[in-house]
């Protein structure tokens, strides 16, 4: 854990293979949450939907091409 305090195993929580105390986990969560802006949320959602839409088109294209080969 980042604060290097001694804790028993029951009081520590493992995250990504590293043991953290409750205070360190709260700090870590707060620091990470603060960085996500509205624009990054919108960008991620829009890009995901666009890629899924393109995936449907590519699925039809690949399927029709493969069906034509056999």
């Amino acid at each position, binding site marked *: 854990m980042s604060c290097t305090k001694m804790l028993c195993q029951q009081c520590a929580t493992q995250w990504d293979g*590293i043991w953290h105390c409750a205070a360190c986990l709260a700090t870590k969560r707060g620091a990470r*949450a603060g960085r996500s802006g509205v624009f990054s949320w919108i960008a991620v959602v829009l890009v995901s939907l666009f890629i899924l839409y393109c995936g*449907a088109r590519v699925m039809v294209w690949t399927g029709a091409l493969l069906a034509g080969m056999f």
Partner: protein
Amino acid sequence: MIRAPLSVTSVLDEAADVVSITTPWAAVLILTSLPYRFLQAVFLDQLMEAGGTAYRYGNLLGGTANLIVLSILLALWGRAVYARACRLALGRGSTPGRETWRVPLVAFVSYVLTASVAIFAGYLALFTFIGFIVAVMFAGIAIGTMELNESTGLLSPFRVMGRYARRIGIPLALVFVFFCATFVALVNLAAAFSLGRWLVTAIGGFDAPHWELLFSGGNRRFWLMLFAGAILIVEPFWVAAHVVYVRKAGAVESGDDLKAWFADLRRTS
């Protein structure tokens, strides 16, 4: 708890234990994946029906493809819930409760992004076979690392995945193991259907003459449904194996497995 060093066999062993603990949540995964797999089978059936003239049925195939994309979102949510169930079960050693439903939105949105890229790449690289294998491996690491995403961003989920893709041998081996497992599940499912059909036709006063035609090797739709069923059976193990892999790989990075092993040694001595 991390119980054994990182290897393909230890990942599969622990994944099997996790699936047995999380059986109720595996049902959620299967139920949410059913529409996706069913529509995929319908799409393949339409393609086989059209054959060489498939390019003339763009509207029909496109309509089914759009439905598949909608069902993917439900299937991805089911996978996210099950991956969380696996992670909680690994930490506690018991079946997780209602908190499993609370998948962090950041993690889910990041997972939709990485999974949609994997699906897109998979269809695009279907011809190359190797590219398809890489896409399946990528999809596995995406579900394994889903809960490690703590901030949204277009690149951050891929950076997290990159950390766990360094040991390429184990994810690649998992792809081949689950490829073989799908065929084993297919054979077992086909045998179970044959046995069920035989038992039903043996009931006195009950005649099912059409069943021989419908549930036989000559029916293409039956085989497509069996294949979809085989993938559904294997999917909980696939998700669990990747969650276990990511946790174990993370423990190796932090030296936590070494600490656990040393503590075990001290306890036994």
